[in-house]
């Protein structure tokens, strides 16, 4: 579904990523690990459209991705993923409001009631049904990340990108979040790309684990070689476990804007 061909990312004369070629299939859960500075987050930003690759192409279902963030790719960051000035329900509604009402970016009347219903169902599935009127500052880190996931999923993105989403959470909450994201991934047939520091997390959640690191190293000019994919492990047993289910990414509700 998502295809990266000979991708290079350079900042000035510093090469961060080199020769990245990947094909990511629909419904997979790809974990990206690697040492700090190996370009994990750069790769995620390029896929997200936040940054433009220096060379190479990214295509989604055969069409090149625009180098700008859009509703086809959802994201959850480690921090700052939810809006502090909106309540839980307001945060969740936002994605529906932007697409349905380009000028006012708000919904009224029956449209709003329908959207609220959809948002509440989404909050129910991440376990935030009872917190709909709280502001993010009143919630724990784990609840904020649940909200961030609900907020992203309501757009029915083709791909969900997670940038160390559970890195700031304490271990007990992190285990709960692992259960939640696995459940959502199975139920909705999501395609997920997750950057993480936690190798255990990468293997327990992913169906495929990519390790980024430098293949070549010039001791006199360490910045001249970028990182590439050194290990690409498909965890086939888990992939087979995914039931054939209706995929949330098949956008029956047209929340994503394009038909």
């Amino acid at each position, binding site marked *: 579904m998502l295809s990266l061909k000979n991708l290079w990312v350079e900042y000035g004369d510093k090469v961060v990523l080199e020769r990245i070629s990947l094909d990511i299939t629909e419904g997979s859960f790809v974990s990206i690990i690697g040492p700090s500075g190996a370009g994990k987050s750069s790769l995620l930003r390029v896929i997200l459209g936040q940054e433009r690759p220096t060379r190479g192409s990214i295509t989604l279902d055969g069409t090149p991705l625009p180098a700008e963030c859009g509703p086809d790719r959802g994201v959850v960051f480690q921090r700052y993923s939810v809006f502090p*000035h909106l309540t839980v329900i307001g945060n969740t509604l936002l994605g529906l409001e932007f697409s349905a009402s380009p000028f*006012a970016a708000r919904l009224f009347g029956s449209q709003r009631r329908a959207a609220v219903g959809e948002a509440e169902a989404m909050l129910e599935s991440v376990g935030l049904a009872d917190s709909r009127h709280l502001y993010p500052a009143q919630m724990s880190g784990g609840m904020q990340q649940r909200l961030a996931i609900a907020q992203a999923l309501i757009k029915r993105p083709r791909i969900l990108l997670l940038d160390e989403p559970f890195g700031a959470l304490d271990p007990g909450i992190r285990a709960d979040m692992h259960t939640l994201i696995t459940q959502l991934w199975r139920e909705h047939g999501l395609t997920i790309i997750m950057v993480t520091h936690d190798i255990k997390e990468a293997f327990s959640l992913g169906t495929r684990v990519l390790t980024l690191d430098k293949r070549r190293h010039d001791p006199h000019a360490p910045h001249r070689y970028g990182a590439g994919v050194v290990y690409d492990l498909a965890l086939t047993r888990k992939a087979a476990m995914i039931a054939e289910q209706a995929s949330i990414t098949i956008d029956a509700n047209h929340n994503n804007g394009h038909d």
Partner: protein
Amino acid sequence: MRWVNRTPGRGAALLLGALPLVVLAISYIIAAAARHAANPADKILPLPGAMAEAMALLLFQADPLSGEYLFWADTLASLWRLGVGLGIATTSTLLVGLVLGALPPVRATLGPLLTAIAVVPPIALLPILFIVFGLGEAAKIALIVVGVTPFMIRDVAGHVAALPREQVIKALTLGANSWGVMLRVSLPQAMPRLIQALRLSLGPAWVFLISAEAIAADVGLGYRIFLVRRYLAMDVILPYVAWIAVLAVVMDFVLAQSSRRLFGWAHAGGH
């Protein structure tokens, strides 16, 4: 218990806060009484009774020349100028600050101009304002606007520009365009900061108002202070200054409370 750990309760804090004010008032009365003991006709430190007498004339007796109650006419005129000036300043800050903060090309285009305007001392522009707008209300209002708006715009634009990049990206992935980001992400988060900037601008705004009134006016709190200065009328000047302080404190309090009321999320604390 160490001093850094001593947090006074609500009542104690109120009492402690009132203490310096009471001390100030008592020492004034002692000093005034001492001067009056030496010279009963002293004008520099009038006794409270003399101040009340002088103020009663301005408060309750119509001026024989204009038929107006001068104190109230002064207050009304000054508050009107201040209100219109700050209203224009706040509105333009919201519009310009938001666009400047949210859209990098606009920031690149207008940022240097704004910096250049902000470093000019507004009082130096006052003659230009008098020439352009005449000696009427417009020039005084314009001085307040010119004086506080650049600072407020820079503050609000800076705040909007410093919102985490993640928020903008998140909004874009939720299907927003630039307008949507400004309307639903930047604007609501700029509002508490705007009120804060307005609170901080109250002091300078009063300075510009009094300066403009001192130079050319026929009514207003600043005008009256500078008029009676010619007669060493401290019995009017001191109550007027106290009244200005009261007005400023009330405005600040109202703004702080409305920010808490309207934008509770920004005052939730914790983070």
